[in-house]
């Protein structure tokens, strides 16, 4: 399948962002290539369309970009997992650790039934902290079943498929390498 290589080639690496030592995987270049973007969505849709998934949760904000088209294509509801204070109505929240301090993610409690099967999407998994918090939101708080977490890019320790908080993690491509050109 030539698509993963084409997808990898479309991801731009920005060195030392947001801080020194981090090689940032910038997926926004991929979004400028409609063919590559469509490949990403198609691969995820092919994987999930027969898994009886009724909910796709996307982690703010880049998870929205991939989660929304996937939800539409497989006929699932889309649920945004958001930074604090953005959602209305009844919300549940989960704290997670940052390198310094902590942050929170929130999800709306409305219309989530405990028998639902959920997919959680983000663009990239680095430490796994955000995805783990999202899984906690679903499983322990909302009572839905997380079928899988999916990311476009995963850092090497997440190579292939493995598990995060006991849930399968599917990663489409490994990180791209910096090609030496400065931006």
């Amino acid at each position, binding site marked *: 399948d030539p698509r993963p290589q084409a997808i990898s080639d479309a991801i*731009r690496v*920005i060195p030392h*962002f*947001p801080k020194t030592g981090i090689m*940032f995987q*910038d997926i*926004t270049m991929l*979004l*400028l*290539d*409609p063919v590559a*973007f*469509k490949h990403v*969505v198609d691969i995820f849709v092919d994987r999930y369309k027969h898994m009886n998934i009724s909910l796709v949760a*996307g982690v*703010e*904000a*880049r998870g*929205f*970009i*991939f989660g*929304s*088209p996937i*939800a*539409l294509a497989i*006929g*699932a*509801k*889309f*649920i*945004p997992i*958001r930074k604090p204070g*953005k*959602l*209305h*109505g009844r919300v549940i929240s989960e704290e997670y650790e940052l390198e310094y301090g902590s942050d929170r993610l929130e999800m*709306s409690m*409305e*219309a989530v039934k405990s028998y639902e099967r959920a997919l959680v999407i983000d663009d990239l998994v680095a430490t796994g902290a955000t995805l783990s918090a999202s899984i906690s939101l679903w499983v322990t708080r909302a009572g839905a079943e997380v079928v899988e977490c999916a990311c476009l890019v995963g850092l090497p320790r997440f190579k292939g498929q493995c598990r995060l908080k006991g849930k399968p993690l599917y990663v489409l491509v490994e990180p791209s390498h910096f090609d030496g050109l400065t*931006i």
Partner: protein
Amino acid sequence: MATEDGQDPRIPKIASSIRVIPDFPKPGIMFHDITTLLLDTEAFKDTIDLFVERYKGKGISVVAGVEARGFIFGPPIALAIGAKFVPMRKPKKLPGKVISEEYSLEYGTDKIEMHVGAVEPGERAIIIDDLIATGGTLSAAVRLLERVGVKIVECACVIELPECKGREKLGETPLFILISSA
């Protein structure tokens, strides 16, 4: 709730799937919360279809989406019409070289940013957000794209809060909406 295009039978269903929150963000404003629309798979699909039908085959090569709810509607539209998706973001979120445009808030200012080189002069674009209120963010997005030579064909939102006068703020730029809170 009035509908912009009463003729299309999909619009009333979309309108009824949107939760209205009175007196938010200020007294007298009826905020429209699209997260309930996203839970109605048919309404969400119809929303995207209405935009795709309008913009397909019109030579639009750029769909710009305003962070963050524009990231929910913009990408499926971009994919369906074969256009690039360009995220327009709050400051310091985009890595690499960016250009930015400042805009006024009620108190103070904010900025919207886009990657340098994401678009080329002469491209035809639509700008998507879920809702237009005062039009501050959308008009900043228009200015940003126009500064680099892009032609804005239209701004498109699911909802308009006409009492906030966003349409006036957009001036000459056309605005297409599905649902008005009037």
